[in-house]
């Protein structure tokens, strides 16, 4: 039995400890905001937070998560929208939008560690997250807007 918290709620898991948390979130908890894109940590669509840090949920097995606090896009903000989400709306970032929960989770983790990231910081943090529609220019602008809003 693995005990963990997902978006603040205590959960008990007694299935296959090899199963990545992505599938626990999506298929069991039906928290479908966290997306499946590649299954091998190459695209970032599945990005969630473990104890506040960005993880690729598609390769993070349940067995490694005892006692962890997991946050998904559904739990990113307790009351209303997180500054990153507000900035995403303000800059009108998404096209198809499929990768954007992962992008926002990655960006939120970046802004937690670096209040005012440089272009190079943004590139470093965000280059693991693919957007096939090509919204990168707006993602960068939204991260800047969120950084400004936070300070």
């Amino acid at each position, binding site marked *: 039995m693995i005990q963990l918290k997902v978006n603040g709620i205590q959960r008990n898991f007694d299935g296959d400890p090899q199963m990545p948390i992505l599938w626990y979130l999506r*298929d069991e908890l039906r928290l479908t905001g966290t997306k499946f894109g590649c299954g091998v940590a190459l695209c970032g669509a599945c990005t969630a937070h473990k104890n506040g840090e960005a993880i690729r949920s598609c390769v993070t097995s349940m067995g490694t998560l005892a006692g962890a606090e997991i946050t998904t896009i559904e739990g990113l903000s307790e009351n209303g929208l997180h500054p990153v989400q507000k900035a995403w709306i303000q800059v009108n970032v998404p096209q198809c939008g499929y990768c954007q929960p992962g992008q926002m989770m990655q960006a939120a983790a970046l802004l937690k560690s670096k209040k005012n990231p440089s272009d190079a910081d943004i590139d470093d943090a965000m280059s693991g997250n693919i957007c096939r529609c090509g919204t990168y220019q707006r993602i960068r602008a939204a991260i800047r807007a969120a950084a400004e809003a936070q300070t």
Partner: protein
Amino acid sequence: MSAIENVSRRGFLTGLVAVGGLVLAARFYPEIAGHERAPGSNQADLAKLHPNVFLGINPDGTVYIVAHRSEMGTTSRTSLPLVVADELDADWKLVKIDQAIGDAKYGSQNTDGSQSIRGFYDVMRVAGATGRLMLIQAAARQWGVDPAECTTEMHVVVHAATNRRLGYGELATAASKLPVPAKEVLKFKPKSEWRYVGKGSPSYDLEALCTGKAVFGMDAQLDGMLYASIEHPPVLGGKVKSVDSQEALKVAGVRQIVPIDPYQPPPAFQPLGGVAVIADNTWAAFQGRKKLKIDWDNGANESYDSEAYKKELQETARKPAKVVRDEGDVDAAFAKGGKIIEADYYVPLLAHASMEPMVALAEFKDGRATLWAPTQNPQAVQDIVSKELGIAKENVICHVTLLGGGFGRKSKPDYVAEAAVLSKKLNKPVKVVWTREDDIKFDYYNAVAAMHLKAAVSDKGIPSAWLQRSVFPPITSIFDVNAVYGDPGHLQQGWTDIPYDLPNLRVENGPAKAHVRIGWLRSVANIYHAFAVQCFTDELAHASGRDPVDYQFGLIGKPRIVDLKNTNYPNYGAPYDLYPIDTARLIRVMQMAADKGGWGKRKLGKRAGLGFAAHRSFLTYVATVVEVEVDDQGEIKIPRVDTVVDAGLVVNPEATRAQFQGAAVFGTSVVKTGEITATKGAIDQSNFQDYPVARMSEAPYQTNVYLVESDAPPAGVGEPGVPPFVAALCNAIFAATGKRIRELPLSKNQLV
């Protein structure tokens, strides 16, 4: 949650058995699908005033507008309803969008070819204007005045003379009793009164997309559904010889192993066949698949090898072939001599790699198949599912979720048919989930193409003769196994439509047999054709010591309508008189791009350069200037892109700019890393490590998009940005390094 309450209040749940699953469906489909409603009905259909299939208005003032095209990021689900709302003079805040199921009553729902706006702009105006006139007539009748004295003001009918006002909601019931007026009596708003068209709006789904609440195909769920992952034949046309499923069945959560029949050629949109692992969750299905032991009969396509195939294409491209456009006498002009310049261009197979892999949920029950799918073409889903299951088309209900990217792949519903077939076999709801590896290996690829170009040039560089020949396995091969030549619809894409005013010009196409499924990918044949024509133009300019932009002006000649009367040229399905190839518009975007991009004026560093290309596709004129920097390792950076677009009337300018920004990133992937190859008939690539697409650090840093103000009829915006970007980037690399890129991707070229 409000969606559930709405649904319950409306009594749609009455008399249903599997309430738990249905409530869930309502939760996951707040405004998309209506599993609990009568098949085929949506809120607009059920509204009090329902003058046509696209519109419904209720007494509470809510306006329902049906989005019948699929949303994959181009904002068509928002932009077409905006046109309805504008002609209706509705308050956008009171509009709810209903996503249509697949139904021929809406007209074409095949969301491809950059044609949603151009194909339905007028239809949407009629839908809105009809509702507006009925509301005016209802108010006039109530007031006992002439309808001609009444106007509308944002959701209200007004009789100015007596200062009386009635809201649309108040009028809905009375209006519903009136006959629907004929199209001929409708009055459309003058441009000066447009509220939304030309101003646009962010996506209707923006907040849902930013909070994880948006429902994509991958997110569709029904209580009691099973999950399926399918091992497809590695080679197209392959068949299962034998399966050992013992180990797979031992995986926790795996329930069953189910064979799927191979397709009968041609493949079209049929399931590929193979072996499905059925499980309690996606992960278990994936794990079970890894334990399958399958012996395959690979069939005839095992002989396919991309290296050998490439040589074949290139040889074919150097031999005389089928003439598809002929002006003057090219052979005689070549015989006269002059400086002959020849070049061969090559672009490999490309995969779509939409971020959401193929996925579909199907429930077969009581002779009816209900589907939830991220599809670009729900009517094609109806067709293939009705054939596969042997049921009538009306009994195939295809709900369209949001699409996590499409790029043409999701016009081909093979994956939806798989879910339907499995649900019928298992008599349970089944969700088929493709892995990324499935997506890369079992795509309908953009054709591999070899192009040969030849020109005889005079002192000033203007060609006295121009020959271009392309060879590629045609898309029609998925419908006809014997098809080897390009059809007019794809030969027109940057090939027979070449706008150069040259006395002797010949366009040819050679044969190529397909060994994989070929399909539409964003911009399609324009990618390789524009790459060849626009880079060869740049080559000729440099060979003649001319500025490439000036030189191209010379090739295009005087502003004119290009005469294609003697060419089989379908013009993207649009009438040529409304949408001619007008070189004045091409010249204007070229001039503007040169100006905005600082062509000839910017000081650039070492191994940096600007490249230029111009191209009309999907009836839209685009010119692009790309700045590139090449480092010591030969890695490229793209600091800036300036692109000028004349797409006629633009409904949603901000969404349009986003499409061209995205096109530059898509084009970067094509140039840098886009390459699918096969060995012994099986695709070599599998995921983003060997089919990389552009990441933030590689993408253009700043793409400036300028839209030409135009009253010309609306044209396409989703696709036309890619082809000129690809060519302009390659021309920029030449400017920076002196290395001419004739073969993609860049890894085939040594830049430093």
